[in-house]
């Protein structure tokens, strides 16, 4: 589904991603871990097409199509979704209005009419129930004054609304309280199917107890320095990253 080959990316001539290789198949869950500043969010941004980062080498393919010349919105239309580590505020635009616009723009790109208001309402009701979101919340300005946890839950609500093929969740777990984490994780699990894939960027093992990954990768200095099964996350929790850093320095 998503194939990343020898990906190099830099910002202001500073190389951040230094040759990433990763293949994610439909139905899989991959976790990406790694120390602060190792390039996890950068990788997510590059997959989503943020042109602040310059891809200097390598490629990202979605279902066999090279995404090089594909704009961020087109990537979204093709099914790429990014749950932001730091969701952005858009004052005066309600969550509902934002989602309505997003869905209808995707439909427009596919030559479809706007979604009828009735269906939109039904969808909103269904997905807000899934994530146990109070509907009053949806009339508030997007992310403005939201608590850290509310922002993250709202990101997953958007994911639920858009039903992406590849969802990248960048530290969605940080900021969520214990109950919220359970709700959000169970939401993600319900949205998971054999036709889509999830990339979880996280620092903590706890999330991976709820959403169990098929693979765990460790990113360090812009490279994947180790990959393994779900037990790798446990090992990291116990040992930290130093042993890996030393291993790769050799």
């Amino acid at each position: 589904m998503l194939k990343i080959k020898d990906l190099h990316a830099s910002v202001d001539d500073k190389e951040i991603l230094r040759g990433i290789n990763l293949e994610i198949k439909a139905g899989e869950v991959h976790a990406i871990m790694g120390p602060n500043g190792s390039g996890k969010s950068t990788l997510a941004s590059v997959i989503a097409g943020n042109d602040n980062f310059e891809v200097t080498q390598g490629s990202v393919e979605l279902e066999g199509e090279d995404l090089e010349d594909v704009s961020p919105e087109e990537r979204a239309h093709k099914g790429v979704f990014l749950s932001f580590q730091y969701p952005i505020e858009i004052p005066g635009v309600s969550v509902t209005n934002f989602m309505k616009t997003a869905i209808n723009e995707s439909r427009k790109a596919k030559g479809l009419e706007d979604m009828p208001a009735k269906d939109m309402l039904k969808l909103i009701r269904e997905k807000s129930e899934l994530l146990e979101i109070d509907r009053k919340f949806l009339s508030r300005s997007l992310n403005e004054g939201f608590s850290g946890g509310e922002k993250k839950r709202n990101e997953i609500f958007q994911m639920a609304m858009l039903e992406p093929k590849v969802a990248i969740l960048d530290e969605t777990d940080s900021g969520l309280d214990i109950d919220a984490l359970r709700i959000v994780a169970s939401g993600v699990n319900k949205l998971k199917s054999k036709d889509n894939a999830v990339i979880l960027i996280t620092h903590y093992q706890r999330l991976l107890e709820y959403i169990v990954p098929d693979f765990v990768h460790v990113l360090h200095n812009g490279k994947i320095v180790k990959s393994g099964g779900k037990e790798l996350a446990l090992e990291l929790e116990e040992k930290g990253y130093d042993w890996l850093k030393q291993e790769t320095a050799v």
Partner: protein
Amino acid sequence: MAYTEEELKKELETKEYEYGFYTDIESDTFPIGLNEEIVIAISKKKEEPEWMTLWRLEAFRIWKSMEEPTWANVHYDKPDFQNISYYSAPKSADPNKTLDDVDPDLLEMYRKLGISVDEQKKLQNVAVDIVVDSVSVATTFKKTLAEKGIIFMPISEAIKEHPELVKKYMGTVVPQKDNFYAALNSAVFTDGSFCYIPKGVRCPMELSTYFRINQAGTGQFERTLLIADEDSYVSYLEGCTAPSRDENQLHAAVVELIALDGAEIKYSTVQNWFPGNKEGKGGVFNFVTKRAICEKNAKVSWTQVETGSAVTWKYPSCILKGDNSIGEFYSIAVTNNYQQADTGTKMVHLGKNTKSTIISKGISAGKSQNSYRGLVQVNSRADGARNFSQCDSLLMGNECGAHTFPYIEAKNKTAMIEHEATTSKIGEDQIFYCNQRGIPTEKAIALIVNGFSKEVLNKLPMEFAVEAQKLLEISLEGSVG
């Protein structure tokens, strides 16, 4: 990757001013130039009574002794007032005709303007008066309104049919000598709307006027006089467009609102005069004087969405004369390319416990300059006066400017005046966030701008709010690289 600068620029070039067509209607246009003979000729053409002619002549004499103001934060080549024709009328316009007799070319023009007079007549509860160049060509719903005793007609007709009302109120809020453009307007105004709501009457529908400059080389000088008698209510809408032309066209209007004891007037404007092309050539000079007087317990709300014109100079104001009267000003001003806007309001608190609210949203893009200029004045006798002002500016790109000039003059110690101001930029991160959800950049900007302007958009009547949102979107197309 996303949009390149080049692609955006190209896109902008193809998005031209939507209302920039010119309708070839036979018209009756005066030679250019301005002198006493022209003023008299206008008055004659309008078959005005002598008092009106004399009033114009007095205004003309005052105007001759005045200088064009230079204090506004706008720069432009001064219009040559001797190089403008002061009267132009579509030949087939006859104010006594009903709508069914209106020239089909004119109707076609309305259709392009998105004003289906017929449709509006039937579907929406909006009475429309349309002013093309210098004359009013169609007023709908006259009969329905007449049953309530409401008078809604071109001002040229009102001068003849209701001279007592016109004589009593015209110039009482904006006197001839008020300012340079108001004096000019008083001398040469050609049409506009007149409206009177009798005591205790709630006007059952929105009243609306569409202004259009069609003919080349003409100025438009319309004058609106609206009187809401005691305890009455009216909501009034005004829309403006003009064809795209290389030369600058002059528009100098005067609007006077009179809200008698306990009356309420909502006055909404969507101004979309031609803004000039992307190099800053052409466009309308919009020099407008709008003012309201509020008697006891009266309330006036000005709501404006200003997206057009090359240069805007406009300060809809309220004189809060009566105790407990309320003045409100809600404004969205958008400037793009080389547009310049200097707009705001004056709230003059004379009565006790008077209240005013000012919400101004300025959006600047391209190389434009957008200034808010506001005065809150509290007279020594205005005990308990209160004002709240909020001025927010949104910038796009690095070449535009936003400026705020709030003036406060409080001569009464009990006055409570609050002023808040913010300036923000549309962030790349906001655009990317929208893009990531599948929303293209242009749409993202529209969404962000609409969100920014929401408090003001919400004040507009429904039908107008939708139109205004679309207009914001069009005005800002191609504004971010």
